[in-house]
């Protein structure tokens, strides 16, 4: 297979970037998208040109490191799945493929297709944790968790923190990410001590990072590689309202 690639090239945050055309030839249909980029990079290096910078790590859809917008869709055309799980057989032979970075103000571009997503880490640092007792391990069955709550917490915990929700959102809102992190701990007994302060701090941190506001378009859940449901955003809204009222009441 052969493809015409239009890839966003930008030397550093200060320079202006643009789409640059590359030809990818002799591509096996069973090559993954990232492997195809590797092959194009081999060619660029052989010609003495600067290879295309892009993020990847596990390449099996569980780490959340890859962050490509392929033909206008975060993580490309295969939903649910990360960009590393897209295979070239998904595209028509001879097709033009546009590759851009995840775009949102809180994701400053570092180089080419690599963006800095530590804004998401700062949201988690604001409250996405539980305080644990030091000392000997507690008895495993001492804390009861209803099956339904465990399932819901697990669904939310599936979030890999890739940032595709914010990248795909028409408003660059990170509500789905924050909702998943807040919901995950709100469903579990271990998350109860910080439940009120957590949601208040995490929403404040999210707003401070400069993400946009959710307008309920549900574009986030459509591209989420972990299939986090947008109903967790409703859960976040509930949690936030209740926490605000409890604070107001002096609790």
């Amino acid at each position, binding site marked *: 297979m052969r493809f015409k690639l239009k890839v966003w090239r930008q030397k550093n945050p200060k320079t202006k970037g643009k789409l640059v055309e590359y030809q990818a030839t002799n591509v096996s249909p069973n090559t993954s998208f990232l492997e195809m980029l590797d092959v194009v990079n081999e060619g660029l290096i052989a010609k003495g040109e600067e290879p295309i910078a892009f993020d990847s790590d596990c390449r099996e859809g569980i780490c959340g490191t890859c962050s490509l917008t392929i033909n*206008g869709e975060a993580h490309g055309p295969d939903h649910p799945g990360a960009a590393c799980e897209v295979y070239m057989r998904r595209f028509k032979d001879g097709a033009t493929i546009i590759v851009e970075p995840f775009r949102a103000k809180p994701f400053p571009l570092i180089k080419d297709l690599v963006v800095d997503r530590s804004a998401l880490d700062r949201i988690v640092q604001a409250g996405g944790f539980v305080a644990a007792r030091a000392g000997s391990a507690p008895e495993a069955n001492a804390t009861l968790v209803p099956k339904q709550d465990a399932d819901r917490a697990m669904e939310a915990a599936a979030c890999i923190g890739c940032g595709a929700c914010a990248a795909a959102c028409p408003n*660059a*809102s990170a509500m789905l990410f924050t909702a998943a992190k807040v919901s995950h701990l709100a469903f579990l007994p271990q998350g109860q001590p910080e439940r009120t302060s957590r949601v208040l701090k995490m929403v404040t941190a999210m707003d401070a990072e400069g993400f946009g506001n959710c307008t309920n378009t549900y574009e986030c859940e459509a591209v989420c590689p972990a299939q986090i449901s947008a*109903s967790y955003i409703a859960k976040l*809204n509930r949690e936030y*309202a209740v926490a605000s009222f409890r604070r107001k009441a002096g609790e």
Partner: protein
Amino acid sequence: MTASSSFFRSSVGKKFIVAITGVVLIGFVVGHLLGNLQIFLGQDWVNSYAEHLRQLGPVLWIIRAFLLLNVLLHIFYTISLALENRRARPVSYKRKEHVKATFASRSMALSGLIVLAFILYHLAHFTARVTDPRFLLLKADPLNRYDVYSMMVYGFQNYFVSGFYVLGMFLLALHLSHGTSSFFQSLGLNDKKLTPRLATGGRIFAWLIFIGYSSIPVAVLLHLVKPAQQL
């Protein structure tokens, strides 16, 4: 900073205001439609309904002030949220596809602002009655009430006026097809099973509103409803 003021300054809190004011305005849209549909029941129904509203006196002004407050809050917060959203993506995509986001959900600001323009015209047309000189020629009905029935019929006999009304209602329906289910999500009154049902229900509701309101100018233009008096 108190907890309540920080609530209404947060992204979640601002959306609460948009959602609650939206619910009030949806309530008005339904009530107003039920009032207007009385035109199909004849002159006496509409005119006595209008007379009852007028007899509310100061209460009517309290209701109007309350609605105006809701409109202003709804617009102020949506515009400020929309401006923040634009700032959140300074460099836009060269190509952007929408997998799930509907056209209605992505054009709320545009549909809302056109509906606002429509409302201003509508108030000038039928409430202040400054756009149609023929309304001055209307005589009181047999029970000496203002003849709202004939005013509506004469008002809609113009194709351009009726066309703008239908267009306004189309954009209102587009706005409500997203807004009606959206407020459940913003207020957290939603879960995974309910979301698709609310989305479908919201769309059906919105287009019923469109059919209801549009039926009046269409019926007038088709001469199914005729004026009760000659000018």
